[in-house]
Structures are given as structure tokens and as C-alpha cells.
């Protein structure tokens, strides 16, 4: 009984700590690099994005999250071959207002994965795979299903439809 109580207490503390970390990381989730590679095929954005993680796989997943995060909150920078793209949710308060929604959306294996595909040939390699203090920093090419992502957020009431202003 004591053991069960201890286990439950430990689990609760652990889950709380994880949520805390997640909230903390949401607030500081701006420290990544992203560049627009070329104009993507219709409805998509083709970007190169960097991620950090303890392993190459973790860093790759982080990079995918970053790509979707950028489309939603930051927007995509322009390049020599592509125009810049504004964020789907330009309102800076969106994250706080819909924090629970995004906790679920960006959870490990969460819905965000349906809107991003890695187009790197094989594993991140060469100078796109760097050992840094505490883990790896990788750069990957990804295709973000931008239009689908936008429609999903609009349907879920997180992003405003363009027509809603009229």
C-alpha cells in the first residue's frame, strides 16, 4: 500500500514536472533557425529547419516541431527564390489562450506530425548534423502542408478565418 502510494505520488510529481517543462519550453520556443528553400508545390511550404535534441532522432523530431511552430506562430522568412509567409496565428496571445490545445497538438506523436514531412535524403548528414554540448543540432529539409494546417486550426477555432473579419 505504501509502495503504491509512493508510486502514485512519484507519477503525479513527474507528470506535473513534465507539463511545467513543456509550458516553460513553449514560452522560450523561439530559439531555432528556419529558412525557406524554394516555393513549395501547391499548398505546401518547403523549408530547411534546425532542431536540437539529446540524440539525432530527438533533434530531428524537434526540427519537425519547429517547422510547424514557425508556420503557426512565427511565419516563414523570404529567400532569394521565395516570398516570406505570414504566420497562421499572428496574434501573440494565441499560444496562451489555447495553451491546452497546443499541449495536445505538439505532444510526442501528436497531430502536428500529419502536417510535416521530412524530405531530407536519408538521415541528417554532413554539416547539417552537429554534435553540440548536451546533444545534437540537426538541419533537415521539410515540407509543411501549410494550407491543410491552416484549415485545421481554423476549423478548431484557433486561427481566425480570413472571412471572419468581414
Amino acid at each position, binding site marked *: 500500500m505504501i509502495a503504491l502510494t509512493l508510486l502514485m505520488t512519484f507519477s503525479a510529481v513527474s507528470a506535473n514536472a513534465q507539463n511545467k517543462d513543456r509550458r516553460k519550453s513553449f514560452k522560450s520556443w523561439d530559439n531555432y533557425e528556419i529558412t525557406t528553400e524554394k516555393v513549395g508545390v501547391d499548398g505546401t511550404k518547403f523549408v530547411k529547419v534546425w532542431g536540437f535534441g539529446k540524440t539525432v532522432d530527438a533533434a530531428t523530431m524537434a526540427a519537425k516541431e519547429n517547422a510547424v511552430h514557425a508556420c503557426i506562430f512565427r511565419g516563414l522568412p523570404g529567400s532569394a527564390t521565395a516570398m516570406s509567409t505570414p504566420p497562421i496565428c499572428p496574434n501573440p496571445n494565441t499560444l496562451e489562450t489555447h495553451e491546452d490545445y497546443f499541449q495536445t497538438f505538439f505532444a510526442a506523436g501528436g497531430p502536428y506530425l500529419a502536417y510535416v514531412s521530412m524530405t531530407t535524403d536519408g*538521415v541528417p548528414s*554532413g*554539416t547539417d548534423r552537429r554534435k553540440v554540448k548536451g546533444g545534437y543540432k540537426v538541419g533537415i529539409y521539410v515540407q509543411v502542408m501549410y494550407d491543410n494546417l491552416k484549415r485545421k486550426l481554423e476549423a478548431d477555432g484557433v486561427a481566425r478565418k480570413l472571412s471572419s473579419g468581414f
Partner: protein
Amino acid sequence: MINKSVFTALSLVFLCTALSAQEKIKEVVTSNYNRNSVSMVCVQRGDSYDSQVSSAVRSFSLGDKYDINNITTKSVRLDKVRSESAYQTEIDGIVNRVGFAREILASIFNRDSNGMMDDKTVRYRGNYDAKDQDVINARASRVGTEALGDLGHGLVSGSYIVLTDFSKISRDVDTRGNVTWSTNAQAFVYQIGMDRDALNDFYEQCWIYDEDDQATRSAKRLAFQNLDIPMVPVAQANATGASSSVEAAANMCIRELITKLENRIPAWEVAVAVIGKRPLRAKIGTKEGLKNGDRYRAYSYTEDRGGNLKSVARGYLRATEISSNTGMAIGETEPSKFYQISGLANIDEGWTIKQTNDWKVGVLAGLKAGGLGGTALGVDIDYLMNVSNVGTMSYLFLTLGLDVTSGNGNYLPVQFGLGFAYGFHLTRFLEIAPYAAIGLEHMGLSVTDSSDDRFTRESALILEPGVRVAANVAYPLQVFGKIYYDVLTIQGPLYKMYNANLAVPHSSGAGVEFGVKWTF
């Protein structure tokens, strides 16, 4: 006084360390390799050898690794006697006079006598150079794979000319009347000094369109003639060669020059990422001129606290199974396979491997004890013939032994022979190679005997089976040990006599050898 000296010494150490660190940061090896195009040009001296050396340069094949720019100037003239070598400044002067950059552009853009050009070659080269990642990127972007040909415009700056000069050509005839020609050779490499902006200017000022009127066409033709694009010296190499003809000796030199130049021009060194392990695989092959046994060096990347990128050398590997990739990439290029031969860490997916040519020649020097008898100095020269996926390696080797204890001024036992070894790698650090050699032991310095078969009569036939174990110390340095059994078979009559006069006559027996090996 002491404090001042210590301070000065420490400052110097600090300065050297800082400079060295800066140098390391600059020397970041990347996997950005693109095909280069080369034109071979012969430097003539105005003598009877011109036709032969020109023929050697013209017929030399650079293989599949390079595109060839078919420029009009195939040879240039240096007014200097053949017995003297050419200087860089002399070649610079010639290159500046000829206007090679214009010829290269005319070749790449198929410029005709009317000044009309097209981009067929550029587009073909762009498609041919495209890697799987380029194809995947093109598919993910709106421009599509049709735009892969545009990559060819970026390859224009990778155009080089190699001027090869031959000097000190000499003819030697041995006592049997065999003729040997030898020559020195120098290669001077220049790269077209054309960046993206200069290329855009070229398109704007010199490209004639169908709708251009005559005045515009004339102006563009004139602009092309007045193009002032420099050829920038990038590397130089020397070689020597000897063969039965001048042409063959020159050909031998060019081969050596190209190998050396590939180690001196970073853009010529193929670099690519490892895409898989067990076995190590990378997407290069015949298109990059890859051959079995070719040596590559692996690098991983780190960032320092300042965010500076650094490449870290992690070990060497050799190509084992070569894929045929001489077609356009479609995103599914078959990789070649490699075997790691050195390095503490296992080479990992995603690391960069870069071409690091060597001669595949190992020189072994050691001390022998036992065998036929006495203590001998041993020197072996082996050539790596083949490497398999599991790391077995075939060697052909020449062996030489000099018995320094049994012989005297008149009877100096020398052993020499030819052998074959087959190496197994239990780990990448340790190679066990059973081998067999056949050779002669020669004994005696009977100067008064000038008969033709003297050498045979003073020699004995030896067979030597054995096992060689080599361990990496700091590649390419290895230590090795050999255990073998020398079988003394057919003996010449003089050999028998000299052998009997030795303090300890040579006979069949087991021996050991220990020494070091260096791979060149």
C-alpha cells in the same frame, strides 16, 4: 630575467595555440562536392619531343570523374630549353596571353562562329551532377525536376585548365641494349575566376538572342572578345616517370600529377555523407571515378561555445564494392560500400567522408631472426590489390632481406622475392595475413667470374610460407610481426660453396620478424 623569459615563452605558446585554433576553424571539411570540368594543355618547348608529349597529354583520359571542356588551345609554347624546368611565373605569363577563360566559356556554351550560344551542355551537366537530395528538393518545390539543369550554371566556376610541362627528358640504354626514357613533369592548374555576378554579366553582355538586331549582335560579339576573366592559379605538382617510350613515360607522369593534384585542390576531392552502416555506404560510385581500395577520410562536426563549426577527423576507410551510378539521379542512387580501416570511433551515419588519395603502397621495415639463418634486415613493399566488404585485403609484395651477421665482405647473403598475402581483419586495428613468397637467396661477390649464369650459380631458390600480423598504432603507422618458414630448395653450385664457408651455414628453418609499416 627568468620571469621575462617564461612570460615570453608562454605568450608564444598562447599565440601559436590561438593561431592554430583559428586555422582549424577555417579548415572545415564539407560534403559540398560538385563535378569539375578540366581541359588538359601541353606546354611545348619547340623541340623534337613536342609531338610525343603532346600526344601523351591529348590521349590521357581523366576518367568519369571530370567533365571535359573541349577548348581550342591544346598546347602552348614556352621558349626555354627542355633541360630546364618551367617556372610558375613563366606559365602565368602564357596563360594570361592566351585568354583561356573565353575558350572555356565558348566550349561550355557551344559558341559558334556567329557568336550564338546555347545552354545544352550546362543543363546536361546540371542534371548529371544532381544528387538525390537535389532531386527530392526539386520534387518538393514548385519548379520541379525540370529546374535541375539550372544547377549546371553553378558548375561553370568549377572549370580548370591543367598545363603540363615536361623537362629533362633523357634516354638511357643498358648493357643489353634496352632503351629507357625518363622525364620530369610539372602540372600548373588554373581555375576560371568567375563568380555568380561575373556569370550574370556575361549572360547580359554576351548572350545573343534570336531577336537581337545586327548592331546588338556585333556589340555582344565584341563584348565576348573583350571579356577579361582571369585564370587563377590554384595548385602545382611535380612528377617523374620512366618507360620504354617518351609517350609512355609522359603518360605515367600525368597519372601521378593528377593523383597529387587531387590531394591539393579541395574542390577536386570527392566528399559525401555516409548513409548507412554495416556495411558503411555512401552515394558515390563510378561517376566520381571511385575504384576498389580508394581511401577516404571520415569527419564529424561539432560546434564550439562560440557556435563555430568544426570538422573532426575520425578515421580512414576504403572503398570495397563500387556502384555504377553513371546516370541521372532519380532519388534512389545505389550506394557504394566501404570498410573502416582506422579510427577509435565507429564511423556513423551522417558523417562526411572525403577522398584522400594514397598509393596503396605499404613499406615494411624490420629485423629478422632465424629463417635461413643469422639476423637480417628486412624490407617489404606491398601493394593493396583488393578490399572486400568484410575487410579482407589482397596484397602483392616484394621482399628483400640482408643478412648482416652471417655474411662477410665476400659472401653477403641477400634474399629477395615476390609474394602474395591475404589479410583478415579481426578488428579494424588488427590484420592477420597469411602469405606465401618465392624468391632467391644470392650469395657471393666473385668479380672475376663474368659468365652469364654466374648469378644463377650463386643463388638458391627459397619458398617462404608465413603469417603477418599488423596492428594500427597511429594510421598510417602500424607495427607488425611475422612468423615464417624458409624452405631452401634448389641451390647453385657456387651458392653451396659460399654457404658452406659461412660461420653458420644457411638452411631451411623457421624465423620471425618484427618492425613497422607505413602506408603511402
